[in-house]
């Protein structure tokens, strides 16, 4: 460690050039950059929230299509939150975060879609309740 000319554990006032980013974090010292970033995120997120509330209440959208619109707006808004609030980027310094996110999404997808898929099949293969009660007699 002695060949290091700086103390890697010490902070020098503001975000240090020698430090890499964690999610939620980028090497930019001016507050203006951050505020602009959060304002953009707030704007996009508000627009998408309003859009999905609109899709849920309007009669302009064909009934069965409304849930699809809501899902699309929700996924878009989650993306906006990840990029503008959690600062997940595609940069090479963010590879670990993105890989962890990808694995997390895979698990979430398997649990969510798998449960719905299996339980729906079980439901439709289930004996109707009347017949079941009849067999127990």
């Amino acid at each position, binding site marked *: 460690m002695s*060949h*290091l*000319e*700086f103390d*890697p*554990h010490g*902070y020098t006032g*503001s*975000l240090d050039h*020698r*430090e*890499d*980013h*964690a*999610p*939620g*974090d*980028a*090497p*930019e*010292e*001016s*507050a203006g950059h*951050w*505020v602009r970033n*959060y304002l953009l*995120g*707030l704007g996009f*997120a508000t627009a998408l*929230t309003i859009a*999905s*509330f609109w*899709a*849920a209440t309007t009669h302009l959208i064909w009934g069965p299509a*409304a*849930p699809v619109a*809501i*899902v699309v707006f*929700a996924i878009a808004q*989650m993306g906006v*939150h*990840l990029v503008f*609030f*959690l600062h997940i*980027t595609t*940069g*090479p*310094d963010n590879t*670990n*975060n993105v890989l*962890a*996110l990808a*694995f*997390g999404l895979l*698990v979430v997808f398997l*649990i*969510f879609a798998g*449960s*719905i898929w299996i*339980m729906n099949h079980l439901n439709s293969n289930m004996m109707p309740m009347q017949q079941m009660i009849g067999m127990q007699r």
Partner: protein
Amino acid sequence: MTDVPFPISREAVLRRREDPSLIGHGAHGPRDIVPGAGHGETGPASKRVIVGYGFWIFLLSDIVMFSCFFAAYAVLQGATAGGPSARDIVDLPRVGIETGALLLSSFTCGLSFAATNVRNKLWTQVFLALTALLGLVFVGLELQEFIELAARGATPQRSAFLSAFYTLVGCHGLHVSIGGLWLATMMAQLQVKGFRHEIVHRLICFNLFWHALDIVWVGVFSMVYLMGAAA
């Protein structure tokens, strides 16, 4: 670029600069390589990166847990046992205010982090306090909703649908409440200890936590409330 004492070899820097697959992929700054990024040849990662990464892993596991509750809700949505369905219990104006409060609190939380980065204690505290206030509004509205539903007989034991509803929404509400306690602790720590590096690390983690909660809420209001109202 030479005023930074690299703990890495000159060859590693040159190799990286000449790698054609990395052209145009700077490290978001004037310099094209970040020492301590933890990418093998650039030396060990800094504590800040390790803390943030570890907390990110925790958040992802938390989201996996939430996905189980979401799956249970999706499966049990129709199992109302003759009781109220999602359509009967949704109060959209209140959900709208809750959503606005949580989104704004995410924004003010981000602003507090911007103030943390320029080491401005006053503004960090102001924005953290605003975040706490908006979080309190959210939790209060949710409690009000639960109490009103319970008064109408829509309690968790009424049907499988309501059990799943209270588990999913209540678990998110619990996360926000505990996050609020953490937020109060962080404000006290910041006031007493100032911007010491472990305090900054905790503030980073708190920011990640709060933003992740907002992402989960996007799923909750879309799937439970909006789809319930649209169905």
